[in-house]
């Protein structure tokens, strides 16, 4: 279990700490005994077959899914169903969805400035300036006044990343950010995520992009049937997996 953690400095306080997490949908157990620690600036990639619980896990980390047992600490604050506490945690945790989930009735700029203005009480000019900087960073400054429906999938997903970054989160969660994209648009989104990782953002990513995981991840987790089966550095995980289940999964996706 701790193979992948050995290389990391032990003194660093984990920013995400999950202990004994259990989640059921009715009688179906979606997450079993999950223990996970993510340190500041670490990039963790979750892989696994569909239905293995990786999306569920990432969605419990900002309370979009509730858990029945166990403890989640985000930056030292326990995640509960108390709305106040949830909102304060969500301010620190940005999320990017598979389906982008931009607000179609607002312009790109309004999409990005909405939360900083109303949640962080930032002034309008300041929020706009931050938004413009972020749009430049994700490379679509010229689309600021368009509506999401007028953009391509790749551009929409980059807006979604900018929208999450506008809250200046400490952690970014990505739930299959490139799965709904046409192949030629995947790279532009991955490039943005890569530069984000290089800038030192703490990231938890659910993805099937092996190349991206090998290059960017500090640690790869394999999930199956609601459990973490293996976690290791990318080199170890992809070249020398310890578990039979991991070998099976890799042979399927690399075939």
């Amino acid at each position, binding site marked *: 279990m701790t193979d992948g953690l050995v290389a990391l400095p032990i003194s660093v306080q984990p920013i995400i700490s999950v202990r004994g997490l259990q989640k059921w949908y009715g009688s179906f157990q979606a997450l079993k005994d999950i223990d996970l620690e993510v340190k500041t600036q670490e990039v963790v990639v979750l892989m696994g077959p569909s239905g293995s619980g990786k999306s569920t896990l990432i969605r419990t980390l*900002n309370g*979009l899914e509730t858990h029945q047992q166990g403890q989640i600490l985000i930056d030292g604050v326990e995640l509960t169903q108390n*709305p106040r506490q949830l*909102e*304060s945690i*969500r*301010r620190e*945790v*940005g*999320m990017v*969805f598979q*389906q982008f*989930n*931009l*607000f*179609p*009735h607002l312009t790109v700029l309004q999409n990005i400035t*909405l*939360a900083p203005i*109303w*949640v962080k009480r930032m002034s309008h000019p300041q929020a706009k300036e931050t938004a413009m900087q972020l749009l430049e960073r994700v490379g679509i400054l010229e689309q600021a006044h368009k*509506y999401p*429906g007028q953009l391509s999938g790749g551009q929409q997903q980059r807006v*979604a990343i900018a*929208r*999450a970054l506008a*809250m200046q989160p400490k952690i970014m969660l990505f739930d299959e950010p490139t799965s709904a994209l046409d192949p030629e648009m995947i790279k532009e989104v991955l490039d943005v995520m890569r530069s984000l990782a290089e800038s030192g953002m703490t990231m938890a990513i659910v993805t099937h992009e092996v190349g991206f995981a090998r290059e960017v991840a500090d640690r790869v987790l394999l999930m199956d049937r609601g459990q973490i089966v293996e976690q290791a550095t990318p080199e170890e995980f992809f070249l020398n997996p310890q578990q039979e289940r991991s070998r099976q999964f890799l042979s399927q996706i690399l075939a």
Partner: protein
Amino acid sequence: MQSLQQKLKDTLLPERVQPAWIWLRQNLFNSWFNTLLTLICLWAITVGGFGLVRWVFTQAQWEVVTANLRLIFVGRYPVAQLWRLWLAALLVAGVLSFSWGALQGWTRKVLLRVGCAGLGVGVALMFVDWMSALWCGAIALLIMGAGSAGAWCQRKPLWQSFKSWLPLLWLITFLVALWLMNGGFGLTTVSTKVWNGLLLTVFVAVLSIVLSFPLGVLLAIGRQSPLPIVRGVSIAYIELIRGLPLIGILFVAQVMLPLLLPPQANMDQLVRAIAGLTAFSAAYLAETVRGGLQSLPKGQWEASKALGLSTPMTLGFIVLPQALRAVVPAIVGQFIGLFKDTALLSIVGLVELTGIARSIAAQPDYLGRYAEVYLAIGIIYWLFCYGMSVASRRLEHSSGH
């Protein structure tokens, strides 16, 4: 290049100028059955249309309408105080035109058309009453003036910060209009018992619409609430009201409410009528709005929540703007229904448009002239409903992108 474009245009959009008789033969007389159908329809339209035209121009005696125009429009409102109604109408028309211009924007053509229609009515009124003609002309001019001012404001960046004051402007407008109509504070009081005819219909309908909208939205949200008590109360209210006929609710409001309340709580019959209509309309509106809420993808809630927005913020900024826009046509349809439902108030003793028509038809001088009176008020109902319909279509058009 030019020739290529021309060639494309020719192949893609062949100019087909067909003689009318070919179109007729292809569409109306293309089989013996369609020919028969066409002939039967033609015969029915001719007979019906001819009968109507003959009745309107030779048999009908329109004196019952022309002699009672004032009753139809404002009922028994004292003639000496009529200027107050005109002034209230002037005020509301001005603010309405300004708001539409400032929020939706007027195109010059439409604004001009609305203004000219008003002036046309004013000119027509010259044959009836000079004072009314002047007031009507003033309203038309104010609509054009205030509309242009609104459209001008819309283009000014400074306007954005004043926008949030518009509801306050409307509240003040409403209070001033109410004061003008009702009196008090220096004006002679005019009892609501003499607010009859169209005046009453519009007053009751507008207030019921304005009040039932927020109530309906709240009920729709309540019905979706995760809190069991809020959800239970909302569902119970909606299902109870939807299971009752409107006329029953109006009877309860008019007849039973005074029995249930303490005698000193002397509610005006207008207030009771508006309460009944609002309660009824809100339940139906809630179900329409719920449809809009449910049509919204769950991802919109999740994205908003993930950004740390609270539930009220999510509703106000993300969910309601999209959900309501999706159901504008259905909502306006319900408002049109509500406007026409005010006719039922005539059964519980309020003399609104239908009520005044009944009392006019009962005047000894015009006994038996039902058709003329009802046709006249029918046209008035239609004009208002059609107006709402047109406004709603404009709203849909301009709010989509």
